[in-house]
């Protein structure tokens, strides 16, 4: 019923600016790293932040040896303080958490990934561990919002970039080339996506239109991260209705067809 998780104080190996307001943070966590599955997250207590209480959840980006990393954007006080931390400083981490992506079996479906902004980070391990290479559609507002393109190319994946201002790749939104690709109706494909909720809703809708199964990593506001506080719930269809399920525990990855979108704010 439960995946294994650990609470540990870990040391920062590096914390460097990626592009613009995005940062890459690598932590040494020899016991946590081997447990991590694609799509899971780490709940991080930014120890120097005294008046803000809560941990901050981050999708896990890469796992290398005894380290794992996250890719984050400075959006508020927590990430601002985090971005100023240096190698050698400590963070308290609960990880790995959540129900992640289903990694395709060898000879199974071809994965099509759709990422918006830093959603790309949550999809990297899945791409790395998938026996079949696929296509990744990545979108952002500007060139600087397109992250880890190089890493996906290094995995020898087909990377299709869109930017809203046309500064990199195709001009437009990411769901457009994705829609065109699904329209080719090739068999045995599966969709995996991470990004802002409106993008995920559109991806789920397109996948449904072409009758392709889709797993979506939902980006909900979280508090405890371990299933207790019931902050991060989303409405999920059940046999005869719907119920609130926890993004931190039953998710963050949900089957797109099970989400009760009409009830989701």
């Amino acid at each position: 019923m439960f995946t294994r998780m650990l609470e540990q104080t870990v040391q920062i190996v590096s914390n460097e600016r990626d592009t613009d307001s995005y940062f890459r943070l690598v932590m040494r966590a020899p016991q946590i790293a081997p447990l991590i599955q694609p799509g899971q997250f780490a709940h991080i207590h930014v120890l120097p932040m005294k008046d803000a209480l809560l941990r901050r959840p981050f999708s896990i980006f890469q796992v290398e040896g005894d380290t794992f990393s996250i890719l984050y954007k400075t959006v508020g006080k927590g990430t601002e303080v985090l971005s100023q931390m240096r190698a050698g400083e400590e963070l308290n981490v609960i990880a790995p958490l959540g129900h992640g992506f289903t990694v395709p079996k060898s000879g199974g479906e071809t994965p099509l990934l759709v990422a918006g902004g830093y959603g790309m980070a949550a999809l990297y391990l899945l791409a790395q561990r998938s026996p079949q290479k696929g296509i990744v559609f990545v979108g952002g507002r500007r060139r600087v919002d397109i992250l880890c393109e190089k890493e996906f190319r290094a995995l020898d994946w087909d990377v299709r970039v869109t930017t809203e201002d046309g500064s990199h790749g195709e001009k437009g939104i990411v769901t457009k080339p994705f829609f065109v690709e699904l329209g080719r109706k090739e068999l045995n494909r599966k969709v995996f996506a991470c990004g802002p909720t409106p993008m995920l809703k559109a991806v789920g809708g397109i996948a449904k239109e072409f009758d392709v199964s889709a797993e979506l990593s939902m980006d909900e506001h979280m508090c405890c991260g371990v299933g207790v506080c019931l902050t991060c719930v989303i409405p999920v269809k059940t046999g005869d209705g719907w119920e609130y399920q926890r993004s931190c525990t039953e998710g963050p990855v949900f089957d797109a067809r099970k989400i009760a979108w009409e009830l989701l704010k």
Partner: protein
Amino acid sequence: MNLSIQIGTLKLQNPVMAASGTFGYGVEYARLVDLNQLGAVVVKGIRLEPVSGNPTPRTVEVASGLINAIGLQGPGVDGFIKKYWPFLKGLKVPTIINIWGTTVEEYAEVARRFDALGGVGALELNVSCPNIKEGGAQFGTDVKLLAQVVSACRKVTKLPLITKMSPNVVSIAPYAKAAEDAGSDALAITNSYPAMAIDIETRKPKLANVTGGLTGPCIKPIAVKLVWEAAKAVKIPIIGMGGIQNAADAIEFLMAGATAVAVGTANFYEPQTVLQVIAGIHEFMQRQGIKDVKEITGSVHAGK
């Protein structure tokens, strides 16, 4: 050195519990915390039927605090017994079940069901949740209704009854006395404070429920004062709670008059808090040469 205390007929190995609503049904934290070290586990509020809770956003962080409006999402009595009781009854420490209803009769029926279950440590009557339209605080802010709920539950069970008091009253003393007179074995003080936060850009409330209940370190001094006032009004033990982050916070509650304490919001960011509080009380007693934790209760030199 003795850390054990007693709530009615219930003996606890130490005075530190995990507060209702912040520790799920125990099982969620079992992978991070040795639950058998706790004084007791208090589970999230349960009424007869399953409850889907409020729309999201349900929580918002504020300076040194958290406002929540979860709306008592829960599995109902049957769902709880099926899904969570098999785990909880296997623990060596008692489970305290937090119960609520929308009518006096429902409180009594839920109390009866848990009495019949066998193996429950105590019942905590939630008459103070600010986030539901019916039930909760409506019973905790009316002395007569409060007495009715407590005595209706008293009639159907011999289990220790703990009344979880609302802070949202002019003076807590008459409410504390009413709960004691109606047969409550202990008081839990306190629940969250009604509160609100606004996003100034969108001019919308930050919670879907508009208002919620404030908890966390920012409420601790007002909760300590409530415990101090209630302790002067009643003879039954008080379980103090509100913003406890460490042993020093817990000891303040004990000195104000609490017999036991509960850790709430801190569980959300540091699941080890309960264990750290227990260790810290032990260390304090050693340092001050205190042999029994009960000596700390009410020991503040307030001169009144």
